[in-house]
């Protein structure tokens, strides 16, 4: 067969396989002369590599045509992109979980299990759909013929029997292997819940471990090959080749699925595997000096919540606000001189000729006007960092996460973010565009009592904030010398920040506030002007329920799944306003 024919066969099989998945956007496959394994999918370039000799070998051993062989391989490889692991984050998690459970059994078994679990999840996904079922099963049957190793044959026989079972097709499995199949059927390979994946990896690994122990007396005594003889999900190589940016993205992908505690362990595990997650060049501890000592914020905590918050964008509805604008006026004329836009000249004033100093031209003036426009307001985050809230460094704190989400979303719209961090004492951060500083102030944990400085809130919501900045620099969370503060206000903050109506206020708390009535009074008062909102997390929610004014908007966050509800509520509210407007 010529290279042209081979190329055609590859293209036909590739397009067929891609069609089975409704044409995902992937690069053309590359056929290589010799490659360790048989085929692989490169998650970075989205490219499939296939070994020519592997295809020829499987085809010769099994009698399966090269076309079918290629189609099966491509369906399998595209499945890694479409079904499992889909992204680097899931692969890292699978690798870490397998290592946790089976590291004592040796690196080879761990590698084999990650590879094979990924293959099984991927192929289970494929055999459930008619158009992909045959290519996968044909290829799997063919590769079973190709391997002579007794143990590998048994392991694969169980897996093949599982795939046939899921496909609803008969498969003859030796009696001695049937208990392993029964155990495998309890695994939910396609459930994308992390805890189900953990249970699946544990159960799957134990099946393989038991098979090995029964047939060979231990994992160290056998050489294991993946189900198709290929190593297409080799985690070590993938991690070695991943850029810091890709690792960071992968960590973000999993940050909302696992606990903070486990997230740290994943980072450590990556470190052990020679991967250094992207770290900020800033010092690890961010110190915020206050009048009552130093509030320390771990830089890592700020980065963790910032990355995590990227998973939950919050819809910020715009508000009708007064704005400064200009109107172009053509009310006057002036002498035209060379250099002035000739299109403004009025040659009729000089007999149809351009005569500098004689010809007149239109004079444009910009007249400043006050108008109204829909704009995103600025945000004041009032964050409860009392002892009952829990240290965001130790646990995944939904209050901190929610506040980070809100701050990020407003910042993204070009708004300024101010922060009041309250516990026994209250501290403020002047409105800023520096997101890192704002998130640092939000993430700072005091761990004391729960008293809101209502006067401070009131001042931060109006022009009196200048007075607050001037008279109470000791309460400021910005680590700046006193003499710079006034300059900072007059130079760095635009005028409209000082307008009361241009600020939204959101308080994140678990309730249990000592001066609750005073705070609720303020929120009821500011409900309309500042769209005052309370975001509640567990704790003393009931106590608030009993006292709440209907004008105050309250959202609840009990777990991360409630954060998107915050968005839906906002959208619903805005849609309601829109519909009301239409009715009128």
């Amino acid at each position: 067969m010529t290279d042209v024919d081979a190329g055609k066969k590859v293209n036909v099989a590739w397009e067929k396989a891609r069609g089975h998945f409704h044409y995902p956007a992937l690069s053309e496959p590359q056929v290589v002369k010799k490659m360790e394994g048989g085929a692989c999918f490169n998650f970075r370039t989205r490219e499939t590599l296939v070994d020519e000799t592997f295809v020829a070998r499987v085809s010769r051993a099994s009698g399966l045509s090269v076309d079918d062989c290629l189609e099966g391989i491509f369906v399998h490889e595209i499945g890694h992109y479409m079904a499992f692991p889909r992204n680097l984050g899931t692969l890292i998690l699978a690798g870490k979980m397998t290592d946790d459970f089976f590291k004592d059994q040796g690196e080879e078994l761990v590698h084999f299990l990650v590879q094979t679990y990924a293959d099984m999840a991927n192929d289970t996904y494929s055999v459930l759909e008619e158009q992909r079922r045959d290519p996968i099963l044909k290829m799997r049957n063919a590769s079973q013929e190709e391997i002579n190793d007794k143990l590998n044959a048994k392991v694969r026989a169980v897996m093949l029997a599982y795939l046939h079972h899921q496909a609803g097709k008969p498969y003859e499995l030796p009696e001695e292997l049937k208990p392993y199949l029964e155990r495998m059927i309890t695994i939910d390979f396609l459930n994308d819940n992390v805890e189900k994946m953990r249970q699946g990896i544990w159960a799957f690994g134990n099946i393989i471990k038991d098979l090995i122990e029964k047939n060979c007396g231990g994992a160290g005594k056998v050489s294991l090959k993946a189900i198709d003889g290929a190593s297409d999900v080799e985690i070590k190589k993938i991690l070695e080749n991943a850029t810091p940016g890709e690792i960071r993205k992968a960590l973000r992908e999993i940050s909302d699925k696992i606990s903070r505690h486990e997230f740290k362990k994943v980072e450590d595990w990556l470190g052990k595997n020679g991967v250094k997650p992207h770290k900020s060049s800033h010092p690890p501890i961010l110190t915020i000096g206050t009048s009552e000592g130093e509030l320390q914020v771990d830089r890592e905590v700020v980065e963790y919540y910032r990355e995590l918050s990227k998973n939950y964008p919050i819809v910020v509805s715009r508000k009708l606000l007064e704005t400064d604008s200009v109107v172009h006026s053509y009310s006057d004329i002036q002498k035209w001189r060379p250099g002035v836009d000739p299109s403004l000249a009025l040659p009729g004033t000089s007999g149809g000729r351009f005569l500098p100093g004689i010809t007149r031209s239109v004079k444009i003036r910009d007249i400043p006007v006050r108008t109204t426009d829909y704009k995103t307001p600025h945000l004041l985050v009032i964050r409860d960092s009392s002892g009952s809230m829990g240290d965001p460094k130790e646990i995944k704190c939904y209050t901190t996460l929610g506040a980070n989400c809100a701050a990020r979303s407003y910042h993204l719209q070009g708004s300024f973010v101010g922060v009041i961090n309250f516990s026994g004492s209250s501290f403020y951060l002047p409105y800023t565009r520096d997101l890192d500083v704002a998130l640092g102030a939000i993430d700072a944990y005091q761990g004391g009592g729960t008293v809101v400085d209502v006067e401070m809130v009131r001042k931060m919501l109006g022009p009196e904030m200048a007075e607050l900045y001037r008279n109470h620099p000791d309460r400021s969370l910005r680590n700046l010398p006193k003499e710079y503060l006034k300059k900072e206000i007059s130079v760095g903050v635009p005028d409209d920040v000082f307008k009361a109506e241009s600020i939204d206020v959101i308080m994140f708390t678990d309730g249990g506030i000592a001066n609750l009535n005073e705070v609720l009074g303020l929120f009821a008062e500011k409900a309309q002007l500042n769209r005052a909102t309370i975001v509640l997390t567990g704790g003393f929610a009931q106590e608030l329920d009993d006292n709440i004014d209907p004008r105050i908007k309250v959202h609840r966050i009990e777990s991360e799944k409630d954060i998107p509800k915050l968005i839906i509520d906002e959208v619903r509210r805005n849609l309601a306003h829109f519909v009301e407007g239409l009715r009128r």
Partner: protein
Amino acid sequence: MNVAVQHSSSSRLPPVLAVGGRFGKYYPEPERDIRKPDVVADQTLAALLKALRTFLHEEGSPYAAPTYKRAVSLAKKLRYSSTDVEKLSLAMAELQDEKGFEVMAGFFLSALINKGPDGCYVLHVNHLKVPLGNLCVNNVKDVTIEGDVGFGLGCEMKKGVIRVEGNADSLTGDGMRGGEIHVDGTVRNLGQDLRGGKIYQAGVLIYG
């Protein structure tokens, strides 16, 4: 608009728009059979999870001894192996947001281990949001725990060995009477009224 106009043979009839002919090349998508994955639920695990849920929801005494007794009475009704307890330690993550989970679940696991038919047990707790407290209460078996544990590990332990591949929080071995506790990481502090047994921290004997 690119529309073909077909003239009728009879000049009296209005021309017929042949726009329908443009869609002739389209045909219905062939129907494909899509199966649902056949996943057989593990009945024993489901029973253990149900019992744990009941245990967490039931109103009971806030004190340790009656709480443990309540867990034992539930455990006695169940049939399970050490593998099922190991599976439960993984699967109970779905209940970790329940009120009091980190305090109560330890009692339930302790009761399952002490009343179980096997001698050795493995628990995986690395994936839980908060380390579990009150693990291996009144212990009499060999238990390996993968991950950090909360307060009161091996409280009132009688015999057996507890190995922790992680750190232990406060009140470790509180009221311990026998057996050994090996903690690979660090022990925040020991409990009170220790009357026997040995406690090792990273291989170093710290009590006994």
